[in-house]
């Protein structure tokens, strides 16, 4: 795609809802939220990198089932992977626990002052997997959940409707803000901004103080109109409101939640060594076997 038109990519919004008819689309938002919460808890308590990679694989499989194109998902996660890989390198060099007894895997370039420690590599890779798992599972959730389902599910959880609507309008406003910012960027460009050869610092300064303020004014004006319109239709008048749309639980939701809990509990028990199953070898053990 030509660079100039990149700003126009409406589907470039990573977390936007993608309509579909998959099983994951049909699930109740709360079921998906439960899945997301359990997944998050597990990624933080598990110590096994092998298990973490299997979970990541599971998310990619679910994305495949949910009609989210692999190409799209990989494209969306590509940036974060690059960022995390950079983080891995930084972690290895600067976050390594300076403990003499810590296992040193090898010395980089055979230099004694560049030890690559086992724990540093482990924590770095673990951080990469955790972030990647959470990021891709959030994409899976938002790509298969419409704003409408999400808001009414939150209301079902007895979260005050004012917060739910504020949250939803915030999300709905994102494309408007994007469009406004793009128009303002074009207005700047039409008058020569960005074409002149000035320092990056000056350009960044101008970008912040010119584009941001103009965009902010435009958004505030729009937000003001929206809030007036809502208040004029008695929004916030009473603590409760009629909820015409009730998010219902279907059999598929119950089955899904039961499966989620079963897997989560089993993994937890396994993690706590309560389930008498053979331990998954650690990456370090595999590393030792290979070398």
């Amino acid at each position, binding site marked *: 795609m030509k660079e100039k038109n990149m700003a126009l990519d409406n589907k470039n919004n990573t977390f936007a809802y993608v309509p579909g008819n998959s099983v994951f689309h049909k699930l109740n938002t709360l079921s998906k939220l439960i899945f997301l919460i359990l997944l998050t808890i597990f990624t933080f308590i598990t110590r096994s990198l092998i298990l973490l990679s299997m979970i990541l694989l599971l998310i990619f499989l679910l994305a495949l089932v949910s009609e989210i194109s692999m190409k799209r998902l990989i494209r969306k996660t590509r940036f974060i992977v690059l960022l995390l890989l950079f983080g891995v390198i930084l972690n290895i060099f600067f976050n390594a626990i300076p403990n003499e007894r810590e296992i040193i895997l090898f010395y980089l370039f055979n230099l004694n002052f560049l030890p690559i420690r086992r724990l540093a590599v482990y924590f770095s890779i673990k951080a990469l997997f955790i972030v990647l798992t959470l990021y891709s599972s959030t994409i899976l959730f938002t790509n298969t959940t419409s704003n409408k389902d999400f808001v009414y599910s939150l209301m079902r959880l007895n979260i005050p409707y004012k917060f739910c609507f504020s949250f939803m309008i915030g999300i709905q406003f994102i494309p408007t803000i994007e469009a406004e910012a793009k128009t303002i960027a074009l207005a700047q460009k039409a008058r020569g901004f960005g074409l002149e050869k000035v320092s990056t610092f000056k350009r960044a300064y101008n970008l912040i103080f010119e584009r941001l303020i103009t965009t902010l004014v435009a958004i505030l004006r729009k937000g003001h109109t929206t809030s007036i*319109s809502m208040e004029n239709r008695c929004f916030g008048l009473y603590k409760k409101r009629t909820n015409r749309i009730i998010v219902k639980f279907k059999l598929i939701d119950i089955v899904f939640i039961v499966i989620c809990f079963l897997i989560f509990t089993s993994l937890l028990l396994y993690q706590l060594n309560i389930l008498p199953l053979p331990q998954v070898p650690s990456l370090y053990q595999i590393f030792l076997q290979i070398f």
Partner: protein
Amino acid sequence: MIKSLSTIALSFTDFSFIYGEDKTKQPSISNITFNLNEGETLVLAGPSGSGKSTISYAINGIIPWRQKGFAKGEVKIFGKNIWDYEFSALSKIVGLVKQNPSEQLVTFTVRDEISFGLENLKYPEDEITSKVEHVSKIMGITDILDRPIEQLSGGQKQLTVLCSFLVMNPKILILDEPIAYLDQESESFLLNRLKKLVKTKEIPITLIIIEHRLSRVLDIADKLIILNDIGNISLKGRVKDVLEKNFAQLKKCNVRVPWLIDVFDEFKRKTHTKNNFQNSIDFQFYFDYISRLEQNDLKKIKKIIQSREINAEELKKYENLDQVIDLKDTYIKSLKFKKFKDKDGEILNNKNNNILLETKNLCFFYPNSGIRALNDINLQIQKGDFIGLVGPNGSGKTTLLYLLANLYQPSSGAVYYKNQLLNDIDSYEYAQKVGFIFQNPENMIFKSTIKDEILYGPKNFGILSRIKDEYLEKLIGMIGKENPLKNPYQLSWGQKRRLNLCSIFIYDPDIILLDEPFIGQDQKTIEALVETLYIENKRGKTIIISSHDYHLLLKYTKRIIELNKEGSVLYYDTKSNYFSKHSNLGPILLLNEINRRLNEGFR
């Protein structure tokens, strides 16, 4: 006595309001006094910044509950002072529909949106369903009830907002320029439903319509109030009385008077008392009237229509460029350009003229979506042309302007500037040749002073040293008597638009592209804008203006490009050829009838 009071829905008595905490500031509105009876329709008009919205805020409770300021006088709704109402109570009886429907829609489908207010009022579900069905039936939108908001046209969106208020059964409904953002089709769609609502009184309501294009709404209005620049009432009365007795005064106000009355009022004056009839806003009345006129009178009325609506006769005074410079006192002599012949149609027929811009098989797709915005556009735009770009919302007008300005890259095909491929020209150089005016004046403001804002382009282009102080001063003068160090955001809406123009005139571009520049602008600003563009065109500038305002395009442009919903060129012709094929426009309809009658007479 009690009975007569109860019929007064709204009364303002000597009401003034100052925004903010500074008592010494000029009031936004002052000494506003009027009454509106229950079931009546009021049209409120006036220039931008005259306080129309302030009045609407004082009715729906934003003033005093949500807006800080100083109020004087009294506003009563159904005999009760607004101070004695709770804000929540007022929102139940007063509704406010704003200009841009997209900023007011907060839910997902038409049904959700219409139900929104009733849900907030804790109505039972069954009642909500029946009320929504009832209102949508009256307004004729039952077929789109379950349609997602993003799939609606502009008119359908605004009608949805309107229904979402009507369903709450408000006593008073304020429509603040409800058709400003709509294309011609959507505008007719909304106005027809609105007129039906008022005439049938199926939902009894007191209506206040804020609109400066009076011809659009006067036929359903009972009363008319015109505000002036400083927030006073300059004219008020029953519509019939104002049109018959005070039309001359109405014309002096900064509003767009109905063209029909304007034309026939002049005809009356020119034929003295021979043709004496009462001013009406009924098109059919005048259509029938001309069928009774004699040949001489028909010629007279034809001449008036042509001079008023087809040719910009009042701008003929600017034919001589030297006069323009003396008269406008805006342009320095060094910027004088060679004269440019512009007789309608002449350029198109003369292939030897310079082609300034050309598009060849130009296509544009929105990236990753596959949605085609423009389809195989082939245009030749000659130097010095003045082109109106029309088409329904979503037909790709803005995209075409962006492509011509080199702000977007074509998906396929190409744009040429003076026979040179746009990609081969340095974008830095080309940007200086194009001045682009965006729809929202504030989207083009980046600096904290007027002076810096005007110099923003030259600074970016590195031509600051070439700008003469004298020229800069004159451009600032175009905005009004303003301090060059004033913050542009403190200017009125019309002044901001003039500032936009100044900020592109400063680097003297060859091509001026304008994207819906008239939206939200008052008549004086529109007149000043077209006048300035006319002069610029005389000075050799090529102008392309995208607008839904067919009347303005009919009068001021030389040529029309019409795009269809598929993003293809439907017409590219001289304005006379174009509008002769589009006879649904009032002045053309009348002219066709007059010509037919004149031809009959010669047989």
